[in-house]
């Protein structure tokens, strides 16, 4: 039986990631339907099942020992499944900043309902179902949140100086729309951090909000948010 710390599966995970990254243009990851993603995910799951049957057996053995209270086996299991869960999260959420959050939520769910794993059954379908359902829920929440975003053109127009020409106003309004949409696509935690620090001009040390409780976490969230916004908005205007 494989022991905790056995890293034979790493090459397989690298293959999964390479497949996952190369199988579909990244720009299309945002426009594919959930059904398409589900089909692609199943094909990846089949591929990975063929190439890494050992992983499933190792994970199953570790989980059986974790259910008996073996902390070492449990830690090895959780570390080992992270790349697999991350690959699933990328399939459903695209190149989103929510991947790490999704992976962590799946790990917590695995911990909470680990009693539902039956050691005589394969481990990968059990884990895959939990991970895919959680990612679908996150994608749905993101979609609902984006629909609730309110865009107030009049309020934006009032921000401009009176001396602007109609062309300037139109251009600024379009820029504001782009920024607003990009903000709407951010994870809630990041959006809150950006609002507090950049819109409300509250220092990270004094910015209380639900998503990130420590100043360090707020700074990290802001950093990630700016990186995501830069990627979403592209290069700045050329003179």
């Amino acid at each position: 039986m494989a022991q905790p710390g056995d890293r034979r599966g790493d090459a397989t995970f690298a293959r999964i990631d390479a497949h996952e990254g190369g199988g579909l243009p990244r720009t299309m990851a945002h426009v594919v339907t959930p059904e398409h993603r589900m089909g692609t995910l199943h094909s990846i799951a089949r591929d990975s099942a063929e190439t890494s049957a050992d992983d499933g057996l190792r994970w199953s053995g570790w989980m059986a020992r974790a259910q008996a209270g073996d902390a070492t086996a449990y830690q090895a299991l959780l570390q080992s499944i992270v790349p697999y869960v991350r690959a699933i999260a990328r399939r459903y959420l695209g190149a989103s900043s929510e991947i790490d959050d999704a992976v962590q939520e799946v790990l917590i769910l695995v911990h909470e309902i680990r009693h539902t794993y039956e050691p005589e059954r394969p481990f990968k379908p059990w884990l895959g179902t939990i991970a895919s359902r959680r990612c679908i829920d996150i994608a749905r929440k993101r979609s609902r949140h984006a629909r609730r975003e309110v865009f107030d053109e009049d309020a934006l127009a009032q921000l401009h100086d009176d001396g602007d020409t109609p062309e300037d106003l139109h251009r600024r309004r379009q820029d504001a729309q782009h920024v607003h949409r990009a903000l709407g696509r951010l994870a809630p935690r990041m959006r809150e951090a950006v609002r507090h620090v950049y819109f409300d001009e509250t220092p990270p040390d004094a910015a209380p909000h639900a998503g990130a409780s420590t100043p360090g976490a707020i700074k990290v969230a802001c950093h990630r948010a700016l990186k995501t916004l830069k990627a979403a908005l592209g290069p700045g205007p050329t003179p």
Partner: protein
Amino acid sequence: MNDTDLLIRHLSTRVRPVRPIAPPLRRTLAWLAVATCIIALVVAIEGVRAGIGDVFASPPNLLEWIGSVMTGVLAAYATFQVSVPGRPRAWALLPVPALLVWLTGLGWGCLHDAARLGPAALAFEAASGECAVAIALTSLPLSAVLLLMVRHAGVVRPSLSAWLAALGAASLSAAGVTLIHSGETALMVLLWHAGAVAVMSLACMAVGRPLFAWIGHARHG
């Protein structure tokens, strides 16, 4: 060390022994034992209807009752299958044949009544509505027990599990109520019994996600 590594370390230090979930068949039998006790209690309080032997001597009635019981049993078994991560969703189709047998029995009963009673077989009887109330009230404890037994389903397939759980509980309750109430035409049984089961199971499916979120799944820290 990133957040995920910290989380893994945190979770692994908190791991405690847990007992793996029992197989679906054993859990179904456990639920059926509870359900049978509850229905037997209701029947004992209300009293078995007069001429129950004659009722089951009629093939349409017998077919309808067996279909109702089997729908309840198979829906419960399917609930324990689909609510577990990794088990196939296709188990949800398991109660469908029994459901068709039940509906066939009801349809046959309607034709039988029409031949026997003429236009009176189509008469609407509002008083028979108490059957639907009895089914709903009996279903409540049965559904509650079943939903609690599969409360982890909220993580996996909340709507499907809630639908199957309500279908199982309501179908068994309908079979139990058949032992109590009498004097209804088959059309009224179709309307109030099958109608109550359909409404309850579809309502549970619609609110499955918030329902399981409210119940909360068993957490093993």
